[in-house]
């Protein structure tokens, strides 16, 4: 009995979680794939005999929908700008905060973590005030250095940047914690050895700390990337995708079509495309990571 348990333990370990994932994620994804080939809307939802298979029409229409194409472009912009910033900022802050455990460091941990637990309504209200073109705090402060006023949420390009800043502010907390936890796994002996070899602190950082963080960095990169591709809440509460559709993301586009207009087939097709994009990008990252590991061995 015991040997049986031990031999099959990896399967025993992963089965409960996989079972739940299978039911609550994978089966629904397959259902979404199927409905992406249909014209299902609310009438079809009530009466399944009214659902028709329409082949690839949803996909063809999507690629002819300027709003969808624009949202893909916006999402790429978010990823390209947002991902490096989130990683750099949360790693940097984690490194700084890791220096000590006195009350001041503990306070700073809470301060940097606070944004990610602040209610989204409060976030929207305060940031709307900060970004307000006429009465906002940011433009008010810019006045003193004779700059501005900056149309934070009114200009199609600046609005994207403004949303990235906001999302960065919200994302740092969790990723900082992950890096902090990872920093504990680095053996102190490495640093001691490096010190004996006469390495300065910059060398210790680049030669020991950052390479040793690669598992955490990889995790943060993958999840942040997926997060940015599914960027949704900030444009929804701050701009609803405007001005002129310039902040609309793929996920928001899907939400609008699926839940505001009840075009489930169309929304499902959109999410399948998003799904494929994310899988491709993630696989590329995994390849990259494996290559890196091979080189080190």
């Amino acid at each position: 009995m015991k040997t049986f348990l031990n031999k099959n333990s990896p399967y025993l370990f992963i089965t409960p979680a996989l079972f739940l994932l299978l039911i609550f994620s994978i089966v629904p994804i397959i259902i979404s794939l199927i409905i992406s080939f249909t014209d299902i809307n609310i009438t079809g939802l009530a009466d399944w005999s009214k659902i028709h298979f329409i082949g690839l029409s949803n996909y063809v229409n999507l690629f002819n929908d300027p709003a969808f194409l624009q949202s893909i472009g916006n999402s790429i912009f978010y990823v390209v700008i947002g991902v490096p910033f989130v990683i750099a900022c949360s790693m940097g802050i984690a490194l700084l905060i890791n220096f000590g455990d006195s009350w001041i460091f503990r306070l700073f941990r809470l301060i940097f973590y606070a944004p990610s637990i602040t209610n989204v309504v409060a976030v929207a209200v305060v940031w709307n005030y900060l970004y307000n073109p006429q009465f906002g705090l940011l433009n008010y402060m810019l006045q003193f250095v004779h700059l501005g006023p900056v149309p934070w949420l009114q200009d199609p390009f600046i609005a994207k940047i403004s949303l990235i800043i906001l999302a960065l502010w919200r994302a740092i907390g969790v990723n900082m914690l992950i890096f902090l936890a990872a920093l504990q796994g680095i053996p102190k002996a490495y640093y001691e050895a490096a010190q004996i070899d006469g390495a300065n602190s910059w060398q210790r950082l680049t030669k020991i700390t950052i390479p040793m963080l690669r598992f955490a960095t990889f995790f943060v990169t993958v999840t942040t990337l997926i997060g940015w591709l599914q960027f949704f809440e900030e444009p929804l509460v701050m701009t609803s995708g405007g001005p002129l559709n310039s902040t609309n993301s793929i996920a928001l586009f899907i939400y609008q079509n699926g839940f505001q207009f009840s075009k489930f087939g169309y929304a499902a097709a959109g999410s399948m495309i998003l799904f494929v994009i994310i899988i491709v990008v993630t696989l590329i990252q995994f390849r990259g990571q494996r290559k890196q590991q091979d080189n080190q061995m």
Partner: protein
Amino acid sequence: MNKAGKRIAVIFVSLLLILSFALSGCSSSSTGTTKKTITVWFFGDQPKPFQDLVAKFQKQSGINVNVQAIPWANAHDKLLTAVASKSGPDVITMGSSWMPEFAKAGALADLTPYLKDNPNLKPSNFFKGSVETAQYNGKYYGAPWYIDTRVLFYRTDLLKKVGYTQPPKTWDELLDAATKLSKRGKGYYGFNIDPKEQSTAFMFARQNGSNLIENGKTQFNQPAFVDAVTYMDKFIKQGATPKTDLGIDLTQSFGGKSFVPMFISGSWNIQTINTTVPDVKGKWATAVLPKGKDNNKSILGGADLTIFKYSKNKANSAKLLNYLSSEETQLKWLKISTDMPAVSSAWNSNQLKDNPFYKAFGEQAKTAEPLPLVPQFEEMAQGYLKSWEKIYRTGANVQKTLDQYNSSAQQILDNK
């Protein structure tokens, strides 16, 4: 058993305990639906007062009413799951703009068979426009519950200063007053056009004589509609309306020195103004809308009381609807919630007649009409907002932009 084994056992026993605790917590209640209980899905922020409102009905009829409050923001999601699973409540307080969608999907029961026993549900008791929201393909799917119509809110003191002792009566006067008010200085405007409010242009176009949709053809690039949008654009061009969203609430910009002393909106603003900017007390009023080329009709929305198609208690549910549609209940609800009665006779009561702010609403509701009652209208209206954004932000040609919009709207309409 070794130590590890014991630990495993402990964990599993505690897991089972937690699960069984949770399960037993639920199973006792799921036997629920006896014949004498009806479930109401109530969309809104005042579930407790609504429960109090139906208390009298429970006493009179012996029917138990179980109210489940559902947040507005997620009401649509919740309705979709009910339609998909064909199980849900008995009665729903449905937002009138969703009526066509759910009526078309066959999710609602026709009320016609219940009219005989429940005289309060007679369509002629309600405002004409309200009843229209409840009808789809000739059937009667809901009893109007409350109405939402839009009127003009204005600052009497500031309008007097620019020579208007009366509220603007025509489009020309509205534009003139707004332009004069905007001359008060930098950052001051006259009239608000909310860039996120989809109904504004359709309302103005109707006042200008447009039928919006005629025989299945969208009319959004016809002169009546184009002229209305051009008229709205004039407010922006002349600086009478903020070009960029001020980013503050309507009532915030209404109070104090008032950045925007005129706007068109619904009755909930009465209370918001009273509580958030009480300093303007006595300096503001409501009025019926200024008249366009053709009329001064406003739009009519609100909520309807509907019975879910898959309900097993339709007759009892209709009794509840009958109770809620009585003049007495409707006036009681007005007092609690400030939702305005859909029963037209209620407007003869002193409670409404003596309130100067409500008067304009009652007047306006007589002629107000709902937005086109097609399930795709929400999507069409969103498309309009994008076109409008193009026009006022980038100065795009009105006719050309609306030509484009009209053809895409036609496509949405044809695409059943």
